[in-house]
């Protein structure tokens, strides 16, 4: 239950050819548009060098189909092709497919006639309240924020087609109905396809705000697109290796850039042997880029980040730039204040702080001291987890071009384009209106691309070098210049009464601070469960000074806090001599105050916990062989209710493998695209298991790990089978990029305890500690 996580990491991001925003405003009816501008990236529009758009190598030129724009989101060709714009970045969370489904459903479109095109980052066109708000990928927000707006948009578009038919036939709109992509007047037995009506519809006045608010939506029972599995729109192109990612962008005349940054975040360039680098054949330029902004904190904390000092090398190809950097470049750095930071130092400081009273109280209720004193039994344990990287498989990159007219264009995999626009405008010293951002499909997001540091670097490099550039980070850059999931330390104590009921719980949470507040993604919700479900609790916090960049990683805060809390609750259950699943159900039944923060419903959680027990055969777990165990955990985040049971086998050698994870989730009354939803849940679970193997170690103020050989990604042989079940309830649909992740690690560690009696209180898991005989 994260306190304040507006932007977590769904996946997602897209790209298209440039659209002139002045041509139309949201839902303004446009004249026939046509032209190459309407070609989708996926279809490989190949704008010529003269229009200067990014081209995708090997893309065949295709003649544009004429399209009648009904509004900013929908265009229909006279042949009936329907182009729907995907408004949010696609980072792998599936929104490029899913959001157009919402529009198509209420438009009553023939899905087989739909083409999806990625929208530009354009707040006036696509980021309005009427279309579900800002264009971004994060916080599992796409579904809850667009569920009604995009359906209304589809319905209003349908109304325009109805009006066109009514005018053409001289009949009242009220007598018309629609079937897939056709308007029907039953009384006169007339039909017209959407294609036939497109030109007339495009000439009609736009639906006004009032219509958008009052337009009738379908009876949900009659949905024929929502709730049916639609394969990811780009999959056929992905498996053919068509260029579509940020790293694939090519701009005419483009050069390639690498950027050397200081290992210690915020370090300043004192000097660099630029002349020697420039003498390398193929190197076009080498220069120092300076930090923009005096205050370091906002540049390394949060969801935008900024431009720090570095040295850019620009070359004819990327390999040459990278090789010149490795073999020739020498930089003298002033490393700055945080050069003594270390993970070992943080651990020592956390242990020291844990001995004292918390520096501040987050939330307190009931008489904890009395409950501890009266307890039949108390349980005390400390949990911790390390810093983690995002490690998107596509390293950070950005293609930038400064145009002759003073405008600048970016091809970016950003999850959060508008702050990126502000950042690059500042770096370039131009108005935000001079910045165009093409949202390009990202090879993973997980929150990394909420920050736009690579955009700022590309802007500075393009400006200084005078060339369009593609900046591409190495994997080592990516590992060492991330904004990490902060580590955390939880020091728990719980009281049990004679009946084994939990009467009190305390947590002294030790975290990291930026200025006077917890750093980004380093908070603990005061309402963290079981607060409000036990008679007394006290959560306090102490903070450690540090200089490491932090930011949201998929299910921020939840991804660590859930491990600590759901593991400790498991310990308490065992101390109480109770079945850990039944113990959780008991707690969930004992709500002592009204609905908790974030609208948490104990009943919804109770139901998924109970159901996952049934589906996993929890009751039969005692018959498992020695060394195999089952564990349970639940969590509420991003409005989703998730409970997992993991089955783990631990060999006597300590080698362990998660065999299977059963997932039950309640994300409301519709699972919009079931195949995409299940894919997200499967991936989240395996991602969560993978995080149990990972760590980022800070030494001498910098990241020790370099690449996947020392910061491993989970592999197919380690990945469990995953059984996903969505429990349908009468609640508004909610998002799925994140909430299935947090329960995975504690379900697994609780299963390891069941298998071996060994309680894992610290991540990553150390295999050698799990040996048993």
């Amino acid at each position: 239950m994260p306190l304040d996580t507006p932007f977590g990491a769904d996946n997602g991001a897209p790209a298209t050819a440039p659209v002139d925003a002045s041509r139309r405003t949201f839902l303004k009816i446009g004249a026939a548009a046509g032209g190459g501008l309407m070609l989708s990236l996926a279809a490989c529009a190949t704008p010529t060098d003269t229009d200067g758009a990014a081209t995708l190598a090997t893309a065949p030129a295709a003649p544009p189909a004429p399209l009648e724009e009904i509004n900013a989101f929908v265009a229909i060709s006279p042949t009936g092709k329907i182009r729907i714009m995907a408004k949010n970045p696609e980072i792998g969370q599936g929104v490029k497919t899913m959001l157009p489904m919402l529009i198509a459903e209420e438009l009553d479109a023939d899905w087989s006639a739909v083409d999806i095109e990625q929208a530009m980052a354009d707040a006036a066109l696509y980021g309005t309240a009427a279309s579900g708000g800002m264009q971004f990928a994060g916080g599992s927000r796409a579904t809850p924020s667009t569920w009604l707006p995009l359906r209304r948009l589809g319905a209003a578009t349908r109304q325009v087609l109805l009006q066109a038919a009514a005018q053409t036939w001289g009949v009242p709109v009220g007598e018309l109905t629609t079937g897939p992509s056709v308007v029907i007047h039953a009384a006169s037995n007339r039909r017209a396809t959407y294609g036939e009506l497109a030109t007339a519809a495009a000439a009609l006045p736009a639906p006004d705000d009032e219509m958008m608010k009052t337009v009738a939506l379908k009876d949900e029972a009659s949905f024929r697109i929502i709730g049916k599995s639609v394969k990811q729109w780009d999959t056929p192109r992905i498996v053919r290796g068509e260029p579509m990612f940020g790293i694939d962008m090519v701009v005419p005349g483009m050069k390639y850039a690498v950027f050397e940054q200081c290992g210690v975040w915020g370090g300043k360039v004192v000097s660099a042997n630029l002349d020697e680098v420039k003498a390398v054949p193929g190197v076009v330029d080498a220069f120092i880029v300076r930090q923009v902004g005096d205050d370091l904190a906002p540049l390394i904390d949060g969801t935008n980040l900024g431009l720090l000092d570095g040295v850019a090398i620009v070359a004819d190809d990327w390999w040459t730039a990278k090789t010149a950097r490795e073999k020739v470049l020498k930089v003298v750095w002033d490393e700055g204040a945080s050069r003594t930071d270390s993970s070992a130092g943080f651990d020592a400081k956390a242990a020291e702080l844990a001995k004292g009273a918390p520096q501040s109280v987050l939330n307190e209720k009931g008489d904890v001291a009395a409950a501890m004193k009266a307890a039949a039994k108390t349980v005390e344990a400390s949990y911790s987890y390390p810093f983690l990287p995002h490690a998107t498989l596509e390293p950070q990159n950005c293609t930038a071009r400064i145009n002759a007219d003073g405008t600048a264009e970016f091809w970016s995999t950003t999850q959060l384009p508008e702050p990126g626009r502000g950042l690059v405008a500042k770096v370039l010293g131009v108005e935000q209106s001079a910045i165009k951002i093409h949202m390009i499909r990202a090879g993973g997001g997980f929150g990394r691309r909420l920050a736009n540091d690579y955009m700022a670097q590309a802007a500075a490099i393009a400006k200084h070098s005078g060339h369009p550039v593609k900046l591409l980070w190495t994997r080592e850059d990516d590992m060492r210049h991330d904004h990490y999931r902060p580590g955390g330390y939880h020091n728990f104590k719980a009281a049990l009464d004679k009946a084994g009921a939990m009467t009190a719980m305390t947590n002294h949470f030790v975290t990291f601070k930026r200025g006077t507040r917890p750093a980004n993604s380093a908070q603990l919700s005061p309402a963290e469960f079981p607060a409000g479900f036990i008679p007394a609790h006290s959560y306090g916090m102490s903070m450690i000074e540090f200089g490491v960049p932090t930011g949201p990683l998929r299910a921020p805060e939840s991804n660590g806090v859930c491990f600590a809390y759901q593991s400790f609750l498991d310990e308490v259950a065992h101390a109480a001599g109770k079945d850990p699943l039944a113990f959780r159900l008991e707690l969930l039944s004992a709500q002592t105050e009204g609905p908790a923060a974030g609208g948490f419903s104990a009943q919804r959680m109770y139901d998924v916990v109970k159901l996952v027990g049934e589906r996993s055969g929890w009751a039969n777990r005692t018959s498992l062989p020695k060394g195999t165990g089952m564990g349970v955990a639940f969590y509420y985040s991003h409005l989703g209710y998730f409970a997992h049971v993991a089955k783990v086998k631990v060999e006597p050698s300590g080698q362990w493998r998660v065999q299977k994870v059963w997932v039950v989730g309640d994300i409301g009354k519709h699972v919009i695209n079931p195949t995409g939803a299940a894919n997200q849940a499967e991936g989240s679970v395996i991602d969560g298991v993978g995080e149990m193997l990972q760590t980022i170690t800070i030494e001498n103020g910098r990241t020790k790990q370099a690449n996947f050989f020392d910061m491993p990604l989970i592999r197919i042989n380690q990945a469990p089978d995953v059984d996903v079940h969505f429990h349908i309830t009468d609640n508004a649909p909610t998002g799925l990029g994140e909430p299935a992740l947090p329960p995975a690690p504690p379900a697994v560690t609780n299963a390891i305890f069941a298998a071996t009696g060994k309680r894992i209180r610290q991540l990553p898991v150390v295999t050698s500690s799990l040996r048993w005989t």
Partner: protein
Amino acid sequence: MAFTINVNGKTQTVDVPGDMPLLWVLRDKLELKGTKFGCGVASCGACTVHIDGAPARSCVTPISSVGAGVVTTIEAVGDSPTGRAVQAAWVEVDVPQCGYCQAGQVMAATALLSTTPKPTDRQIDDAMAGNACRCATYVRIRKAIKTAAGLPTADTREA
């Protein structure tokens, strides 16, 4: 220096340093963007191509070492029946999330099925463990390989 290599059935000559990895020749000289860069050190499999039918990490394959080897990339893997079946299974099972690793996965899976048409779960694990998927689409990768092989798709590793 000039190197003449055979890529996707075409003979191509590039003038590059001999230590330039095949990956960057493909991507930045031959404009074949399908082969991806993930780690540069043979640790992720995103850059997997076939050389004479066998999977190779193009990020650590210097162009000077390719010689007369026949290079096949994701752009042409569908020319073989096995590659085509793998691509079709990937679509059928709806494998990708972000999709970035999937070119490498398809190449590795095609190489597996070319030598082992009916792989066991263990053989799939062994052949595919070098190909990381950060989005963790492993349940579906397994399923798609079995679909392409015409095998039942259930995960049998537990048994």
